[in-house]
């Protein structure tokens, strides 16, 4: 694991393995999710992989009724919007991710500040396999 380059490709492969990974600067300790190869805080270039707990808070979202072709193929559209948003991880970094298990036909029920936990949406098989980062309302929290 440690030998993987600090790249988007590595980030995506980790998602395939159901791991949400970031990079931490050896020099100053700054954390980046998705990973960065170069530290933009101190200029350091030595990084180490860190696994995120996968819990966080919803900071912004949207429910999209007119989506790209890939989402239309998944059955999303005007009658069934999908939610995507910005999640602040408990470790402090933010990620953009799909938001699942929320009522996208009534977005007023989705609240900023709501605790969320990670999910991994696997699509395709073999070399075509892609995993999308997603979050859902945390157990016991109001969606």
């Amino acid at each position: 694991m440690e030998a993987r380059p600090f790249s988007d490709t590595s980030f995506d492969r980790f998602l395939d393995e159901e791991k949400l990974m970031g990079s931490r600067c050896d020099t100053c300790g700054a954390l980046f999710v998705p990973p960065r190869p170069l530290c933009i805080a101190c200029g350091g270039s030595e990084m180490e992989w860190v696994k995120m707990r996968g819990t966080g808070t919803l900071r912004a979202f949207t429910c999209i009724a007119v989506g790209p072709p890939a989402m239309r193929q998944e059955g999303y559209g005007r009658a069934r919007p999908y939610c995507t948003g910005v999640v602040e991880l408990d470790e402090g970094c933010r990620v953009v991710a799909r938001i699942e298990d929320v009522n996208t036909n009534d977005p007023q029920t989705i609240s900023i500040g709501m605790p969320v936990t990670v999910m991994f949406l696997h699509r395709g098989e073999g070399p075509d396999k892609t995993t999308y980062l997603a979050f859902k309302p945390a157990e016991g929290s109001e969606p």
Partner: protein
Amino acid sequence: MQKKRKLGRGVAVVGVGMSKFGMFKDKDSKDHFVEAFREMTASIDKGVDPNDIDALYLGNFSNDFFTHQAHWGPIVADIIGHVPKPATRTEGACASSALAFREGVFAIASGFYDIVLVGGLEVMSMRSTEEVAEGLALATIPYEGKAAFTFPGVFGATATAYFDRYQANREHLFNVTIKSHSNARLNPRAQYRASIREIMDSKIDRARKKGMEVPTWADEKEFLRDPAANPVVAWPMHLFDCCPISDGASCALLVGEELAKDFTDDPLHVIGIGQGSGRGLHAKEDLTTFEATRFAAQEAYGMAGIGPTEIQLAEVHDCFSIAEIVHIEDLGFFKPGEGYKAVEEGRTRLDGPKPINTSGGLKCKGHPVGATGVAQIVEIWEQLRGEAGERQVAGGDLRVGATHNLGGTGGTCTFTILERR
């Protein structure tokens, strides 16, 4: 503190032009540029010989995708008789022609060229709405794309963060939309020349003529609340929060300041010019601002030696209603969290103390993305010179105006300050 910058040589705008924006089945990119170029040459009080133009900088985001033709610099150069002199395309997503303007300014300021044509073009209507959304999404950042964000989606998310932080709501955005429509109805080159009230009346008329149930909206806000009239695109962004799909072109002639008198006795001087870059939603420290805008504004204000209060009117990049509110805060016109109140109080209206988007903005004038940055310059030119017709800002003493152009999801932002002396 940003370093204070200045141009090595003053630069003036001596003429501007734009095509009528809209969706045109029978006009291609060259036709639009010719229309803008003709208007530009006609706008130069003492005339210009096109053979004297040293170089062309042309902003274009993605005619490659929209029209299956790339490399528009030399194509446009050819049609205006500019070949074999140089033509350079600039790309900064929806800020592409603001970058062309900036490169033109630098080329003259350096002393290398004296007379430079800058402009932009985009033809988007050959594609379906879904395809245009896909094409524009090429200018999000990769993480946003993978999370299935669309452009309206990014600004929808910005709106939810803004609403939460400042206790604003969707109703506040209606004020932006109503104002944009009311300004655009006075702009002959705008794509949508109707107020919200006129749109309501025409829908009522149509329902009557077809014998359908006649809608009864009490006012503009009730119309905008009606999901049948104003469907959701990317909540809370609805149809009337979004700029349209547009075709069009724009251009401006820039010259060394000392040469301006050969073209006009009434040029606009480029007194501030700034550009910044930004990161995606995940890396923004504050989801309710665009750091690229703030950086560009500081650079331009620093160069001009003035602040936001001295800007008398501005065109800002209102690709979505929430964007206008965020920009007027980022540019310092209003304090953070005060933008939506300023719009509600009418302070940004044509007759308000700080008119914003007198052209109707991207929302109603139209947004052929690569043409927008210089088209904003066209509006400021007409307003400062008192040539804006029915939508002329009253008061008579207009001297300083500015344009703010945003590319992608805030990845490239520019701010340009123009002065009439």
